[in-house]
């Protein structure tokens, strides 16, 4: 095999194994930063040796053994230092740890638990959101600093620094490498889901034709989400998030037009929707709902997305059910943006007058002052009711508020159409 091929194989093995490797090392060292360095060391050794010796029969086991041996060395050195200060208790603990380690291949559940601990640690609320996303991509996605930097359109040193600081913060706070329990679990899980969805949206917000790393973020988020769903199958919101991402990703091909302009959901060509992802999304939604808990925000948003995915044509959409889902969602997430979406759903289910009433209430409350979609929605509803003069004013206001040139042009066109009507 040629050297470049070996390098590419090592890359592939790393991609598959790195998270598991780091996770099981972190159980030993109790420090994810150190675990990652040990794993990286093993990778460097592979890059040096494999081109000469050939790729081992079981490359995953080779990496694990190499990294674990280094971890033992490290722990032994640490123990020598401790021995100077402490009694035999450390010795006993060490012996116990080593006996665990001698097991050639750890059981599947054990690796799963370590991975879950790693996800919770990387997404620890102690860290700033940006640090959490970078660390998650690095530790769980196996992405290089350069790749993360490209994906987020920031300079590489910025990401490198973010990761170094995040690792140090975790070590300084002595964050335990564990799966949180009880109430704490809920809180920490929502932090994990937030990070995964952020990574997804970072890729999803990018329009077609850009750097390949940005669409790859969607795939990365989906992959981490699917892994998490396998590790925590009893958490309905995990399935909800996976369902939401699968269904949103199914529309990627349809959501931009020929010259890159955004195409709204109801105007999308549904023949371009990815049926494999829709199918997966509906299954994930079913799994989440089957757990029978009160539906959380992700499961509700997934259920709304599923209503659109199931409709073969926009006219087949079950708006009455969507309205009911928004009623539930607005109770959990009472933000003006959700309220506005609910107003649109109500207008589709019960007519423009009913929707306008809700949109007017929002406008009166003044919570969405500079959000262009509020006047845009009001303009649309007013136009449907034949109140063209008022509609025109709303479209013009919306055109002033949006920062997107293409959208602004579209809104001004609609304003002009109202004038003619």
């Amino acid at each position, binding site marked *: 095999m040629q050297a470049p091929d070996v390098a590419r194989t090592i890359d592939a093995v790393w991609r*598959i194994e790195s998270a598991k490797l780091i996770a099981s090392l972190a159980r030993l060292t109790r420090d994810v930063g150190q675990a990652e360095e040990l794993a990286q060391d093993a990778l460097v050794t592979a890059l040096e040796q494999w081109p000469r010796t050939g790729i081992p029969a079981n490359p995953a086991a080779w990496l694990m053994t190499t990294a674990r041996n280094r971890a033992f060395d490290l722990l032994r050195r640490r123990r020598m230092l401790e021995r100077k200060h402490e009694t035999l208790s450390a010795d006993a603990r060490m012996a116990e740890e080593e006996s665990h380690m001698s097991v050639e291949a750890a059981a599947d559940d054990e690796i799963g638990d370590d991975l879950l601990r790693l996800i919770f640690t990387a997404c620890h609320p102690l860290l700033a959101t940006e640090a959490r996303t970078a660390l998650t991509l690095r530790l769980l996605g196996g992405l290089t600093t350069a790749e993360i930097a490209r994906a987020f359109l920031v300079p590489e040193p910025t990401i490198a620094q973010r990761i170094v600081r995040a690792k140090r913060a975790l070590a300084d706070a002595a964050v335990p490498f564990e799966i949180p329990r009880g109430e704490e679990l809920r809180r920490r899980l929502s932090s994990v889901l937030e990070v995964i969805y952020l990574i997804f949206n970072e890729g999803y917000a990018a329009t077609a034709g850009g750097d390949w790393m940005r669409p790859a973020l969607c795939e990365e988020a989906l992959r981490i989400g699917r892994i998490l769903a396998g590790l925590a199958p009893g958490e309905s919101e995990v399935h909800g998030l996976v369902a939401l991402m699968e269904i949103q990703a199914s529309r990627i091909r349809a959501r931009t037009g020929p010259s890159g302009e955004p195409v709204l959901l109801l105007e999308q060509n549904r023949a371009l929707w990815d049926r494999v992802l829709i199918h997966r999304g509906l299954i994930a939604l079913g799994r989440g709902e089957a757990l029978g808990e009160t539906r959380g925000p992700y499961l509700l948003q997934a259920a709304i997305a599923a209503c659109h995915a199931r409709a073969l044509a926009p006219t087949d959409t079950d708006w009455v059910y969507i309205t009911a889902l928004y009623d539930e969602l607005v109770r959990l997430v009472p933000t003006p943006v959700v309220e506005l979406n609910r107003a649109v759903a109500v207008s589709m289910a019960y007519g423009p007058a009913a929707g306008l009433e809700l949109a007017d209430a929002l406008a009166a409350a003044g919570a969405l002052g500079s959000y262009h979609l509020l006047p845009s929605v009001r303009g649309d509803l007013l136009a449907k009711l034949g109140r063209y003069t008022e509609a025109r004013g709303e479209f013009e206001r919306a055109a002033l508020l949006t920062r997107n040139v293409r959208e602004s042009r579209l809104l001004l066109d609609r304003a002009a159409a109202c004038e003619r009507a």
Partner: protein
Amino acid sequence: MRVMVIVKATPDSEAGVLPSEELLTEMGKFNEQLVKAGVLLAAEGLQSSARGVRVRFGGGKSTVIDGPFTETKELIAGFWLWQVRSLEEAVEWIRRSPFARSNEEIEIRRVFEAEDFGDALTPELRAQQQSRAERISRN
């Protein structure tokens, strides 16, 4: 990126011989690994070509030909759809499959994504594709 991993037919699969319980168990374990890694999107096994047909077109006509079809090696017995980051990753995965101990040949093919067309897919072509898809969806 997505790849389709294609498993070719064998005399056994064409004869309708079902895989042994041992192989099924191993394959089940392998699929489980793929699911856990978030790699597996879809997987299907195909019945023997004796239970399929071919439709041949020519001169404005169509002819239906019943199976089985003879050229076993050209036939497909099953496929996976995987989401991986590189072709090498797919190769590494298949090395871990139960096929590693067989004498079979597995074919891995990249699935086209919109961005693969790059600049070759001009706005005009994209528009054409779009309107074609629209016509199809209306029919």
